[in-house]
């Protein structure tokens, strides 16, 4: 067992940032309910307001609102159901892509079962999605276009800005972007995407699990999914997760300050990783033409992803098969993203996802590559 831990699974989740830990420890005993009239409540509300401002700043937006949710999945559900319900009189058609996360695909499939029509735009074989394909799918009765900013399995950056520009002519179509893999990494991501709704998750950027947010452009109205005490402007009732919100605020602030420099740093690491992986016999890189450096997907046809994950883990290297969320009962299921890209079954089951962190060094990448070469070689000697 290698002494060194090489965690290359940051697209699944990230360790807690020291700055976040510090803020949480300081806030642990501030137990006020933001809805209370007394001072305790006011203190909590103030902490939330500053976190909200930090999230907005990291998104690069002015105006509009940031609604805190329990997770990214909930924010995606709120965006989709909230829009569909509110604007159901405009039409019953939704456009999305075949490579969305299940937290987008499953809500639209549910709506499909309720009589809505959904167009699922296919990706190109290289994992990219063409803006023209998305725009061509929009019809007169389209209510919502929902697409991700960065694909969580391949790292493909989707042409969200181009789609947003194309949708300008159709003012009634709401544009939702699932930005879970972009938030805190792409500078001013929501502004850049031109989104009406933008989804954020805390634990991908060093906040704990259990906090997410949905940005809503000024003037756009959607309906709530959770009804109750009217918190979060009536869009997400339930006593706020104040600690989670504070954590997300701090993580957003840290991410925003360093986003650009870190992107450049990780880009160099990703290039190094790709070059090294390309040298491993039998490896096929799955790099979309425009991709996030934070995610590198590679296929070893004929080997099984699950076995590779464990073989690498044995030497301290942690990676995923496809996405951690695509496991059912912790068992890897065939990736719908890779299948949509037209990959053969043995390519789908033989694909690994490396996802990088800004704290990784060239040394880490080299150490990871050494583990990959040795372990994959060993597996190849058996099959």
């Amino acid at each position: 067992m290698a002494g060194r831990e090489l965690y290359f699974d940051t697209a699944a989740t990230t360790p807690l940032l020291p700055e976040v830990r510090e803020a949480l420890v300081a806030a642990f005993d501030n137990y006020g309910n933001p809805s209370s009239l007394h001072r305790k409540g006011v203190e909590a509300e103030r902490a939330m307001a500053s976190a909200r401002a930090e999230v907005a700043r990291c998104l690069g937006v002015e105006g509009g609102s940031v609604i805190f949710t329990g997770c990214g999945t909930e924010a995606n559900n709120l965006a989709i159901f909230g829009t569909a319900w509110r604007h159901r009189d405009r039409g019953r058609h939704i456009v999305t892509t075949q490579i969305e996360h299940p937290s987008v695909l499953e809500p639209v499939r549910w709506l499909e079962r309720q009589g809505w029509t959904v167009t699922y735009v296919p990706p190109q074989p290289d994992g990219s999605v063409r803006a023209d394909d998305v725009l061509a799918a929009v019809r007169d009765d389209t209510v919502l276009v929902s697409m991700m900013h960065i694909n969580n399995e391949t790292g493909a950056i989707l042409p969200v800005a181009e789609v947003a520009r194309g949708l300008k002519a159709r003012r009634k179509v709401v544009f939702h972007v699932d930005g879970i893999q972009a938030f805190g990494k792409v500078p001013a991501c929501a502004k850049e995407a031109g989104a009406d709704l933008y989804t954020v998750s805390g634990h991908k950027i060093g906040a704990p699990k259990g906090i997410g947010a949905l940005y809503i452009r000024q003037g756009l109205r959607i309906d709530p999914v959770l009804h109750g005490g009217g918190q979060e402007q009536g869009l997400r009732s339930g006593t706020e997760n104040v600690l989670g919100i504070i954590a997300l605020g701090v993580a957003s602030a840290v991410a925003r300050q360093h986003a650009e420099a870190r992107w450049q740093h990780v880009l160099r690491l990703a290039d190094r990783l790709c070059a090294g992986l390309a040298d491993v016999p039998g490896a096929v890189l799955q790099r979309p033409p425009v991709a996030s450096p934070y995610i590198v997907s590679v296929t070893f046809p004929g080997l099984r992803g699950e076995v590779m994950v464990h073989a690498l883990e044995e030497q301290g290297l942690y990676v995923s098969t496809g996405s951690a969320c695509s496991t059912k009962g912790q068992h890897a299921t065939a990736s719908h993203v890779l299948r949509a890209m037209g990959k053969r079954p043995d390519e789908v089951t033989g694909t690994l996802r490396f996802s990088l962190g800004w704290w990784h060094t060239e040394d880490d990448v080299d150490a990871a590559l050494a583990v990959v070469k040795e372990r994959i070689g060993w597996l190849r000697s058996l099959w």
Partner: protein
Amino acid sequence: MIQHVIARYGEISLKGNNRTEFEKTLQRNMQRALRAWPEVKVERTHGRMLVHLNGAPAEDVMARLARVFGLISLSPVRVVAPDLQAIHEAARALLQDHQRQAGRPGTFKVEVKRVNKQFPLRSPEAAARIGAALLRAGMGWKVNVHEPDVTVYVEIRDVEAFVYGTKVPAVGGLPVGMSGRVGLLLSGGIDSPVAGWLSLKRGVEVEAIHFHSFPFTSERALQKVEDLCQVLANWGGRIHLHTVHFTEVQTAIRKHCPEELGITIMRRMMLRIAERIAAQRGLLALVTGESLGQVASQTLESLRTINAVTCLPVLRPLISEDKVDIIRRAQAIGTYDISILPYEDCCTLFVPRNPRTKPRVEEAEAAERALEVDKLVAEAVERTTMKTFLSAW
């Protein structure tokens, strides 16, 4: 008010020392199973166990006892003053309980045992008086002395009388710990936990032996086996799990042996390793979940070739069971939902495309020539770890 529970055991053919050992083991297992209620005391008396509740909830205690191997039935006992009026009222309550469950009145008889010979009425007389009072009570019950729906048992003692009649079936079998110890080859599948449970039911202590082949099987597959051990421990009181690190054996077979004999040789290696663990731990036999003809390695030819490496008895409680029946049992035991979790286990990943269904012993021996059998076995045994599971019920 239920104050006692009578717990009956079967296997009446047991005699002499065997019987005493049976009763002592059973009493100990019962007391252990009831440790959540320290106030409950188990007393051995007249060929049955009398469980003094001392305030513990009768239903919970009975539910727990129904899962203690060796007990065949349980009866809640009403304890009243030793006078006819009080006994009659308790008997009436008993019949009412039955009527509520059956939805209608039935037939009954009364049996009286007079432990206190000072009691003014003789047993038959007392029974007749109590029976007559029950008939007069206007509940609609009728007497049937040959095949009654309910027998109302009355025991008149010195300062109290027992009234009981309801019989709740318990799991049966023999008390765990009176039949020696076995090694159970436990995979994560459906069959082997059931084989283990059936072994416990016949009174043996079970030590599970699991072959772990990380990275070909995951940590989660091992967790699953541990969860299965926990379920077996809930039934049997305690399970030791020996986890054998089997990766080197798997890869050596893969490298040095013909693919079509891979499973046969793997099973032979498992038995060799299990035999060594058995010797260390004083296990008298090995138990497997094999069922004849279920898969390629479970043909008679295959079983014979696999079995040839050991002279320990290999018990196969499921050998003639159909899969559906095994599944039904697994569901009843509580292992099924764990077993069907979809992680790779040792057997699935190395399955050859065309396994030999009728491997001969000589073939297997020839195929193993390139394998350093003794060294591999010794190293695997060396790297085996043990973990213990205690009942969580």
